[in-house]
């Protein structure tokens, strides 16, 4: 991108280590003050993402996945959120940038596919007009050209008879088609960063498979960076190159997809892997759930936030009860935030966790 560096950019204090990655999130914190206390939705999250790569962010509801993605897009501005940290997108810092500037990046440089296409699209406007609007904001083209582009995009994402369906309203589309139209809208300006928040949760398996194929195809075509946010480990395994596991607003494990599915090291990741019934394995008699429920983000447990639910909490007591574990690298590219000794973790995985998967 050769967008001219604008005046405000020079006012942002530059870090010594200039980011080299396409997307570089550093110590992002998003807190919401409420009557009940401060909700720490995202609390010190760092990760990087290159173009052409797919990052899967996994976690339970309330772990801060969606808040992170909205934070990157700058959609918390003007609300009561307290945001700190840095988000570097292609050499520009976004947290300190003016809302107006971020608004201009949105749609063109970064775009989002929302979870529920029925509520993300405006019911009063035709599907085509909504795509045309997004396209014309960022490109100086005539209405006619924009409409042609919208029809092209709808055809690309697999909507039958796009030249007729472009004049339909969202309610005239089925769930899968609406999600396709959302994707067409998000891709209409060839974004370099695409964030997909639970892109297939509302869809049936057969349609889900079609949408996952589509995201994969379009990514290889546009070489965009893709962030997939989901709670479904199956979806992540299909799409992601790298995986970030979040718990209570923090990253607890990060590594390549292969590494996380074959040699996970955090007890929470183990819990996620073993609690889901799997079609590719023999049927187990019992599922192994994670005990308890996710913590409140107002009173996050002391020490390791996962310790009240952790099966192996005693092995690292009393540190796990008092000290917040930091992300440390255990093997190249694989980082874990856990007090257990790395050797001990690998032994537990090999002896107690993996055999039951």
């Amino acid at each position, binding site marked *: 991108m050769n967008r001219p560096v604008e005046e405000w950019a020079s006012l942002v204090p530059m870090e010594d280590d200039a980011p080299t990655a396409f997307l570089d999130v550093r110590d992002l914190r998003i807190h919401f003050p409420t009557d009940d206390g401060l909700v720490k939705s995202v609390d010190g999250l760092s990760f990087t993402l290159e173009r052409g790569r797919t990052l899967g962010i996994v976690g*339970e*509801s309330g772990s801060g996945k969606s808040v992170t993605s909205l934070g990157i897009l700058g959609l918390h501005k003007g609300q009561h959120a307290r945001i700190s940290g840095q988000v570097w997108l292609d050499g520009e810092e976004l947290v300190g940038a003016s809302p107006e500037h971020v608004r201009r990046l949105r749609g063109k440089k970064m775009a989002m596919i929302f979870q529920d296409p029925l509520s993300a699209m405006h019911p009063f406007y035709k599907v085509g007009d909504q795509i045309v609007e997004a396209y014309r904001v960022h490109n100086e083209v005539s209405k006619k050209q924009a409409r042609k582009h919208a029809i092209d995009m709808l055809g690309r994402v697999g909507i*039958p008879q796009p030249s007729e369906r472009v004049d339909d309203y969202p309610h005239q589309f*089925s*769930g*899968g*088609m609406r999600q396709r139209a959302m994707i067409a809208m998000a891709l209409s300006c060839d974004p370099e960063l695409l964030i997909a928040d639970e892109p297939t949760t509302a869809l*049936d*398996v*057969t*349609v*889900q*498979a*079609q949408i*996952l*194929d589509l995201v994969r195809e379009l990514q290889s075509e546009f070489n965009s960076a893709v962030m997939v946010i989901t*709670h*479904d*480990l*199956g*979806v*992540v*395994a*299909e799409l992601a190159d790298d995986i970030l596991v979040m718990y209570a607003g923090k990253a607890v494990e990060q590594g390549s*997809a*292969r590494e996380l*599915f*074959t040699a996970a090291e955090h007890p929470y990741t183990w*819990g*996620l*892997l073993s*609690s*889901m*019934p*799997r*079609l*590719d394995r023999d*049927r*187990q008699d*019992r*599922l*192994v*759930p*994670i*005990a308890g*429920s*996710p913590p409140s983000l107002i009173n996050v447990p002391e020490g390791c936030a996962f310790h009240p639910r952790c099966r192996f909490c005693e092995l690292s007591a009393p540190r796990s009860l008092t000290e917040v574990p930091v992300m440390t690298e255990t093997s190249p590219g694989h980082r874990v935030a856990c007090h257990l000794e790395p050797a001990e973790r690998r032994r537990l995985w090999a002896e107690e966790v993996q055999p039951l998967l």
Partner: protein
Amino acid sequence: MTISDVSPRPADAGAPRPPLLEVTGLTKHFPITRGVLRRQIGAVKAVDGIDFTVAAGETLGLVGESGCGKTTTGRMLTRLEEPTGGRIVFDGRDITHLSVARMRPLRRDVQMVFQDPYSSLNPRHTVGTIVGAPYRLQSVKTEHGTKRAVQDLLERVGLSPEHYNRYPHEFSGGQRQRIGIARALALRPKLIVADEPVSALDVSIQAQVINLLEDLQDEFGLTYVVIAHDLSVVRHISDRVAVMYLGHIVEIGPRQAVYEKPQHPYTSALLSAVPVPDVTRRDNRERIRLQGDPPSPIDPPPACPFHTRCWKAQEVCRTVTPPLVEFAPGQRAACHFPENAPDGPYEPGTDSIVAPAS
């Protein structure tokens, strides 16, 4: 209240069990009306003639895409929806068209667990009121009073008795689903229809609730009809599985047979579309990709409902409705070109194989 009359769940799944629920030709058409006279101009054929039985103590899983009629089926079984046609026989009684008043005593035996734990509990009632409601409505006297009974139930489903005076908003999704299960269990029903009992829950909580449902089944000898779209969940909890498509059952059979040797192409397609959490198999999986969406149930395709999306479809599929034929012991499918039955239909009683129907 005693539970001694509840027979324990038979351990041998293969032995023939008396059917608790028998459904024949069950149909539900929702009329589409137009104009001031509300003239009927068509019908949404949500459920279009399905047959199945559920034996006492077993779990039948109903799977299918949204709009295939699985929820409508569940609502007809509990008589929340009036069937348009067909028969539902529960425990030897025809309950298809019983009046509300005559249905009431039967509600002790048939209960439902709903999908959304947020909207299925009254936010203005305490947990005690919600779970105790069945006792009041049915005027059931309990040995130590309703409060004690409710607290026992709460404990049984993994909540604590102190939760009696709390309101639903104070609970997480998984806990709310437990409250819904406690309410369904209050009267010691024989049959529980669970409509997507875990789809609103996180994976870790999902496993807790699935384990709870299984424990309760063993303890109280419950029979379940579980409606879900998640095929791995259905495989985990069902003894038998019915696959629905556009208001029809296209395949029904024992869990293992349906998942390992599916007969209907739609079942194969559904199974191959499930994302598998195994990165190593990402690139070398054989996949069947269905094109498009299911057709509208207002104007379903003639003959085989699946022929518009089926890669095996031939002329006969467009003209002749395939009957549900037994291709393996207990496994029936409605298809002219079954996937895993090279020798044609299975003849019960003999081991000889008959020639494929022409």
